[in-house]
């Protein structure tokens, strides 16, 4: 077995437009996803919107540049993740296809192991 991180990339504006009703609907879908995939799920969280993000980079003078905003400015931003266990990439993709992400999509990344 191996662990995979499923990253949810979605357009935050979509949720803003959908309002409270949209959020409730998404929450319901995530709960159902969690119940259906309890055997594979090892963890997961929703993130605050990118407006709450702070990025930190090394600057040229050897110090740190701390900036407001996410690391990469894209239309679809990282909004949450699930940590799952799966035997193969095919199994992980099968779980990832069930993740509710109405305003974007998901990325599957294997968790690296070090001996």
């Amino acid at each position, binding site marked *: 077995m191996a662990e995979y991180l499923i990253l949810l990339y979605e357009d935050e504006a979509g949720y803003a437009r959908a309002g409270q009703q949209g959020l409730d609907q998404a929450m319901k879908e995530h709960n159902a996803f969690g119940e259906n995939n309890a055997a594979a799920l090892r963890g997961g969280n929703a993130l605050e919107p990118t407006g709450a993000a702070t990025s930190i980079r090394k600057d040229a003078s050897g110090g740190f540049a701390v900036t407001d905003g996410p690391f990469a400015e894209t239309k679809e931003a990282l909004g949450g993740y699930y940590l799952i266990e799966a035997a193969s*990439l*095919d199994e992980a993709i099968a779980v990832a296809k069930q993740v509710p992400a109405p305003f974007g999509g998901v990325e599957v990344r*294997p968790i*690296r192991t070090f001996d």
Partner: protein
Amino acid sequence: MTADSSVVAAVADAHRREWAFVLAATVRVTRDLDLAEECVQDAYARALATWRSRGVPSNPGAWLTTVARRRAVDLLRRDATLRRSLPLLLDDQVDQGPAELSSHEVEDDRLRLIFTCCHPALAPEAQVALTLRLLCGLTTAEVARAFLVSEPTMAARITRAKKKIAAARIPYRVPPAAELPERIHAVLTVVHLLFTTGHTAPAGADLVRRDLVERSLDLARILRLLLPDDADVAGLLALILLTDARSATRVAAEGRLLLLEEQDRSQWDRSAISEGVALVREALRRRPPGRFALMAAIAAVHAEAPTWQDTDWREVVALYDVLVQIWPSPVVALNRAVAVGLASGPAAGLAALDALAAEPQLAGYGYLASARADFLRRLGRTREARQAYEEALLLTENAVERDFLTARLKDLTP
């Protein structure tokens, strides 16, 4: 043929026919693609020496597989640390040897290898490269030449793909039935891309890359053998056979491009055509018919028409109408428009083409310009025809195609 050269020929033949079979069975022992490739290369080198002294075995594939698998078992036994350090391929039925095997399990192994090489989690160009390397046994230099990139670029592409297979744990298996249609489609797309790249090389001195066409035909035949009930597989094999049946007549002796209209139909490969037509009939029995079956059916109409004038263009248009429904690609729409022109006259064809002028995907596509040029020429609109030929010339890098367009342009010069 001397005894020595007949052994060399037997090894070359086994390389072409048995590489995928031998490698796929060896991967089951090594669970590592690089190590398996090394053992298989070693087995072919040994074949050259051993077959010289002891004769060519009755089943070269089984002989090579046994030697390659024994070598793999030896290497892994001798170097237990090697085994531990490899990121192993995921295999639900790990086969730790013995080195001998039944022919039944091998066929299954070849399918595993095909589905691994054409996994949708790999970039399309990596799928094609891995397929040529692992299934057809081409060297990295040969794969690089086929796609006109440098050898280090291709080597990096192949290494990256192999690393992803291991790191992301792309399984070495035949997908379960529920995923099979989608995954077979990915495999067929790779084989079709190989064929089209070979059939009209995007650049270079030759119109056809024979090596790529033959590899795609080999792969389609392997798939047909392994998935005999799949209509899309039958359709793709039919398409390749029927299109390639005309290959001997596509270029004149002096290298000039010959259009379907000018080709010597008596030189078409009749045995390929009858095999292809039988496969089309089989593939079309499935409803709705698949993309490759419809494309093959169109090729079959051409293959069976005794002359260009006798071509059933209405049937061709009808088939394109169905194809454009299930596969709405601008290129299909373009081919349909050309068929409309041939069924109903150049003015109708030109109108159908002009409806596609705004299609962004066709903006850099030379065939749109050359098809327009041809209809304009038939309508006697010489000045516009010349402009369209000039535009088409800007859009192809293939020398044979360029010569053809230049000649047409010259004919229209007052």
